[in-house]
């Protein structure tokens, strides 16, 4: 176990490992992003990225086939794209279409290319396609009243290689989660489903990255609850909800994250506890322990 203290001068909002688990990117209210190299129990700060004009909420690593690339989302309304080449980090692109804080950023499954999904307090979601010729064509659309807090891509279904459709889930200040699907003809995203169940802001959404038998989406909320949504396999496409635990969490649930194999869900709440969850053979969710430090 590695503990990094005093990494930033203010609150830290996100910390994410790269594809190989070797590099750690962190971001903070101190407006900076830091890159650490992690090796066993050692960690080394290698770079501090400056360029944002407000707290940086989230960072996301691109798939390594695109190079060493990181995207960062900030309260300043911008998403910055950073690249490392020959040990040198630089800011290579800026995505500034939002009118308010950008709360979430994530790269699409690499099969879709270098495609970035951003969620903003201005109520819109933007999807930016960084094309090979260097051009971009952002699609921006209204997703949730008052604000969008989180967004997460659906995984690529490798069984249906020829008919890949881009889908993702968003969570907002209207207490809803919504599923969106790309409509190539209209060149925009259309609402496929509304996931109704929370009674306060949806703070995080996480689509399970692996396709086990079914699709899973976890939604974490200000209402102190987590709901796991599963899509019925009867072809109706309807989503069923199940509370992760019947009793409320003691505080706001801020984040949900699936393990890469998709069978463990990590939950972090305002009570500063990290809990792990697994589905049992009966299809119910049970605690798999608490991570203490």
């Amino acid at each position, binding site marked *: 176990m590695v*503990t*990094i203290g005093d990494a930033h001068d203010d609150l*830290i909002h996100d910390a994410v490992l790269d594809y190989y688990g070797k590099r750690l990117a962190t971001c903070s209210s101190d407006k900076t992003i830091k890159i650490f190299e992690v090796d066993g129990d050692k960690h080394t700060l290698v770079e501090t990225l400056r360029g944002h004009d407000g707290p940086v909420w989230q960072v996301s690593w691109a798939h390594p086939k695109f190079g060493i690339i990181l995207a960062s989302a900030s309260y300043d309304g911008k998403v910055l794209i950073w690249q490392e080449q020959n040990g040198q980090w630089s800011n290579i692109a800026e995505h500034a279409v939002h009118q308010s*804080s950008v709360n979430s950023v994530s790269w699409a499954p690499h099969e879709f290319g270098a495609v970035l999904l951003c969620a903003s307090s*201005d109520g819109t979601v933007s999807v930016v396609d960084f094309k090979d010729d260097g051009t971009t064509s952002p699609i921006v659309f209204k997703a949730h009243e008052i604000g969008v807090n989180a967004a997460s891509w659906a995984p690529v279904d490798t069984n249906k290689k020829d008919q890949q459709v881009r889908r993702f889930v968003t969570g907002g200040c209207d207490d809803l989660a919504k599923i969106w699907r790309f409509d190539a003809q209209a060149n925009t995203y259309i609402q496929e489903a509304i996931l109704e169940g929370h009674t306060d802001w949806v703070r995080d959404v996480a689509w399970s990255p692996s396709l086990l038998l079914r699709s899973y989406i976890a939604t974490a909320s200000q209402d102190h609850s987590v709901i796991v949504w599963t899509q019925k396999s009867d072809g109706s496409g309807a989503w069923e909800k199940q509370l992760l635990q019947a009793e409320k969490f003691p505080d706001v649930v801020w*984040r949900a994250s699936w393990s890469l194999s998709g069978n463990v869900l*990590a939950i972090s709440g305002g009570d500063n506890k990290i809990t792990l969850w697994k589905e049992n053979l009966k299809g119910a969710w049970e605690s798999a322990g608490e*991570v*203490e430090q």
Partner: protein
Amino acid sequence: MVKVHEIKSTSTFAWSSDKKPLLVTGTVAGAVDANFSSASTLEITDVLTKTTLFSTSIDAKLHALDWSAPFESYTRGLIAGAFENGIVHLWDAAELLSSQDLAKAIVSKSEHHTGPVRALQFNPLQPYVLATTGSRGEIFVWDTKKLSAPFRPGQAMSPMEDVTCVAWNNSVPHIFATAGSSGFASIWDLKAKREVLHLSYSGASGRANLATVAWHPTQSTKLVTASDNDGTPLILTWDLRNANAPEKIMEGHTKGVLSLDWCKQDPELLLSSGKDNCTSLWNPIAGTKLGEYPTTANWAFKTRFAPAAPDLFATASFDGTISVQTLQDTLEPVSTRVKSTNEDDFWSQISTTDTQQPQFAVKQAPRWLKNSVAVSFGFGGKLVIVKNNMDDKTAKIVLAKIPSSDEVRSATEKLSS
């Protein structure tokens, strides 16, 4: 600022406590429109969809409105109106919205004040309790369940004239503050049945006239006051444990301050507006100005956060608009000019001004966006955890390893041992 909606009316207003907030507006006393119309209207607007949900004419103008949180049979809360003819009206908001009939929705009509009613507020902890203030130092506290008998809060120790502001403490239900033309801000204790403290301030530029007051969202002894005196347009924060001098003095308004609102969700955000036509955002804990919103063409007499959606706020101005804006706008500013629709209209001509685009760099994010923890899985069962200490603003990152999903339970047991 993204302007969400603009209501064309010289009105006072109050927000509902819904997450998709509604705004009740009522023609404000002390102003006439270009037609010298004496008409007065009461309206309810859904600001997000920009639709008027209810509108009716009423027979007098208002000094203030408030909208309580829902309680008991009032599923959408009570709306209270402070009228210039001395009447306090209470309406059932759910009934207003469903029946569209003002007469049906009336809960009470009370004539206890002997002069204009200047201000009122529902108690945030006990929404059935209402305080109203008016001229000649009249202050009443009402239990809306038995409206026949409001009571006076007790003995005043400072001179009272027009009491133009009343604010309940957010953590102690029997404490409230008033302010007005006498220059003092007064603290009342309903249990002691008297005014227990009064605040006053004189600076280098003269005596402040403390005409507005707002309480800290959680700390019972802290409050903020402002002076509506053009010579001393100051905002002052106080801790009542030492009421001799203010804690912070915030300068920035160039004329008297008319309205204050301390954000319920983030004590580091305060809105103010005033006679200099400006609406500003402050950090009252640090005592710093965070930014200024587009100016109105006349006094900005009231500004309020939407209580359950504080990304939104509304400002009412004597230029005939209530504008609903977002707290933050990150797009490049563009210069605009406030213009009347009818260029020939003399009255619009004189109220036309350049709006200065905001010098706005709100780099201080609101508290409700700041996550205290984060967790993310990485390759090989690694778990990255972020834990923040929100009080001293320090953080730590922990990398834990979970060997394989089958061993999660034993791994976490090992981690916790």
